[in-house]
């Protein structure tokens, strides 16, 4: 390093400042801009500021007043428990279909091993991104309008959701593989499909299994509400009771959702641990 020129200290001491002209100005300017934007947003959205600050206290009050005590008898009713099973089935099918569909998409949209970087790569990317971009409830409404009420619409919506979710994680995983075996396969004259099957799949198999399990976990969370929009499962009960203002039942349903999601999370965590150990 060149430490030849030493500036004398005293003049620097008088002029040193943390704030430099252009850099600090940009930084504080953008910070100010963001703040102004946020405040303006609150104004634009007609948000009642005192209500906003009181809302969390209000939340506790509302829960205590309206949702307590939850009507637990309602959620242990066999009719309701059957919809819990329906929810489980939907999430499982949606996850399986989504995972299987997303594997080719992830292959296309992983830049390093994509079979065709000009055409299939952007196509795969676009497929995954649009599945991700549209919220699962919108997918549900769309499928309900095409396929009618029922679990088929729910499964289709969850499938789309899982394609978006797993596709992104899968392609990230593929893009991170060791390129050595890939190059070796290519050098041996393998076509892109053979390269994928022989050089990529063995490297990502375990990670894919973990992601697939995680996908089911996330799909289950989404499955609890697809029924709200006509896709079948426990969400439908939620909607009916919300509309009928049966708050104690709503409280019980929300509690049951939390319990189910916790169980699903526990199972998925355990399965992923098993899979990782089997590696």
């Amino acid at each position, binding site marked *: 390093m060149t430490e030849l020129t030493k500036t004398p200290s005293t003049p620097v001491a008088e002029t040193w400042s943390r704030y430099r002209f252009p850099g600090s100005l940009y930084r504080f300017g953008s910070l100010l801009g963001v703040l102004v934007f946020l405040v303006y947003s609150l104004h634009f959205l007609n*948000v009642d500021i005192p209500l906003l600050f009181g809302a969390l206290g209000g939340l506790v009050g509302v829960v205590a007043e309206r949702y307590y005590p939850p009507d637990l008898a309602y959620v242990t009713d066999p009719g309701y428990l059957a919809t819990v099973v329906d929810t489980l089935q939907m999430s499982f099918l949606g996850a399986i279909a989504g995972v299987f569909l997303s594997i080719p998409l992830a292959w296309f949209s992983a830049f390093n091993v994509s079979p065709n970087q000009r055409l299939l790569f952007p196509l795969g990317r676009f497929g995954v991104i649009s599945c991700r971009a549209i919220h699962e409830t919108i997918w549900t409404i769309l499928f309900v309008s095409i396929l009618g009420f029922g679990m088929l619409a729910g499964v289709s919506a969850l499938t789309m959701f899982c394609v978006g979710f797993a596709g992104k994680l899968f392609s990230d995983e593929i893009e991170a593989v060791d390129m050595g075996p890939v190059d070796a396969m290519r050098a041996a004259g393998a076509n892109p499909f053979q390269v994928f099957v022989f050089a990529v799949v063995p490297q990502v198999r375990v990670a894919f299994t973990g992601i697939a399990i995680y996908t089911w976990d996330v799909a289950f969370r989404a499955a609890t509400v697809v029924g709200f929009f006509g896709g079948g499962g426990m969400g439908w009960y939620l909607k009916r009771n919300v509309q009928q203002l049966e708050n104690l039942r709503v409280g019980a349903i929300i509690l049951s959702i939390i319990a189910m999601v916790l169980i699903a999370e526990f199972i998925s965590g355990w399965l992923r641990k098993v899979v990782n150990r089997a590696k």
Partner: protein
Amino acid sequence: MSATDSLAGSLNLQTGLRRKRQLRLALIWGLFILFTAWCVNGTIIEDTDWSRIGGRSGVLASFGRYIQLDLGLVSELILPTIETFMMACVGTVLGCFFSLPVAWLGAANVTPSRHILYPVGRFLMVLSRSVHEIVWALIFVSAVGLGALPGILAIAMRSVGFISKITAEAIENIDAKPVEAIRAVGGNQFQVMYYGILPQIYPVVLATVIFEWDINIRRSAVMGLVGAGGLGLLFFRQMNSFNYGGVTMVILAILLLIVLGEVISHYLRKAVI
């Protein structure tokens, strides 16, 4: 197989192990396929009224309704798009504020009480993530009425889980050395946090917040379905008035907004790191 069976004892053991593994694998796959079949039977075969869907032509016809775009809707799209974007931004920022205390409680090394408040912090993280944003929105609509506020609060609550979990993990993984140095110069609790901990965790936290913001745009686009305004409300209206071309327009607007969000977050992430 028969060739390996006839080999020496040690090899026999290996074959036995492999057999066992194959058997187990076959069992897992068998159960998997059975379970899938049960699910397919329950959801698709029993629950679906195929005659009402009307076969392939019926599906195609209902799908076709979506393709005729309603270009007249463009002018009506602008305000809700802005609303949706703002709701996501405000919700994310609010979520960050809620996350701070939760992360503080739920990080094992800085929590004020390991036996009482630490489990509370962890529980809040799980609670936030396990309740779907639609459910959060329903709760808040009943608490504060219709409008953007319940949407913002729902987004904030749903964001808390992920942001505070990652923040707590980052706090748990900090390098203790700068913390020790600040304690050694006589710094108080606040200075230890602000100089010792914060500089270490803020890149991770910011990246997480940007990631969450990106997701929150998607979430805020559906808040209108349960009464919180924005693109969701417009979507709902188009759907209810059977204006399928308009529905497609709303979806295109959502896509556009999300692509925009993706671009912005890409640059923000670069600026942070």
